[in-house]
């Protein structure tokens, strides 16, 4: 899920081309992400933390979000969770299956209909 515009990034650690945020300072973070339904499609979106453990890449789902079935086109879904992160962990939202969209219809700056955000709030 490539949220390709950056509003702010205090550690300059978000890649707008990949949608990946790399943790600079380990700790407990709050993360949010949003998306919209494509009518007729069941989307499953996972918030992922990718970590290198013993030189092996390990992906863990921190939060799952789905519209299930029978949810109308352009319904918005917004998820929030907290997670413990280590330096160099990569955080991103990933579309596991189905279709979704990040913008329900045209908008221009400075409007933001949905976003991917994070903030460190503890050690």
């Amino acid at each position: 899920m490539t949220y390709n515009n950056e509003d702010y990034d205090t550690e300059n650690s978000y890649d707008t081309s990949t949608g990946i945020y790399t943790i600079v300072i380990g700790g407990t973070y709050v993360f949010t992400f949003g998306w919209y339904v494509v009518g007729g499609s069941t989307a499953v979106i996972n918030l992922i933390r990718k970590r290198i453990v013993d030189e092996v890449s390990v992906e863990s789902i921190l939060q799952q979000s789905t519209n299930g079935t029978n949810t109308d086109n352009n319904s918005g879904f917004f998820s929030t969770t907290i997670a413990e992160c280590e330096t160099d962990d990569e955080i991103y939202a990933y579309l596991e299956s189905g279709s979704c969209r990040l913008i329900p219809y045209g908008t221009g700056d400075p409007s933001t209909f949905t976003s991917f955000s994070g903030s460190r709030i503890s050690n």
Partner: protein
Amino acid sequence: MTQREEVRFKVYTKSSINITGTNYFPLELIDFIGGDGTYDTTNYKYSVQNAGTCLLGVSYNKRTIQNNGVCNMVVDRVVDGVSTTRVINKSQENQTGTFLTMNPVLMYKLEVGDEIYCRAGYGNPSTNLNSYTSDDTLNSLWGIRFDY
């Protein structure tokens, strides 16, 4: 720089359980718990040891289309020696679709001795779409204290 050590917790289950009646959300696994505060994996209640304003959240799945998928986030509190039970957030969706994720988040001022937990209401919410065994946290109940 002084590092802050906030009170925080995140609990979950890997099972897919349709929670009937007004039963508790059976979240028997602890992802992490820090600072003060305890979580009982047998009665599914988090006990507050430090007063303060917390950001609290829960996620789960609705079931059939008519199903409201009610989740009551509850605080048990002793007031003047009397035990009280208060719902601090009720989430539900009526006729909005099936099996979608519900993820209410709120701020609430907690007191020492408060116990936090989730109970089902009308419509039998589900803990997860499907059971799983991987090292993931698809849905959870979590909280972190903000004010110091």
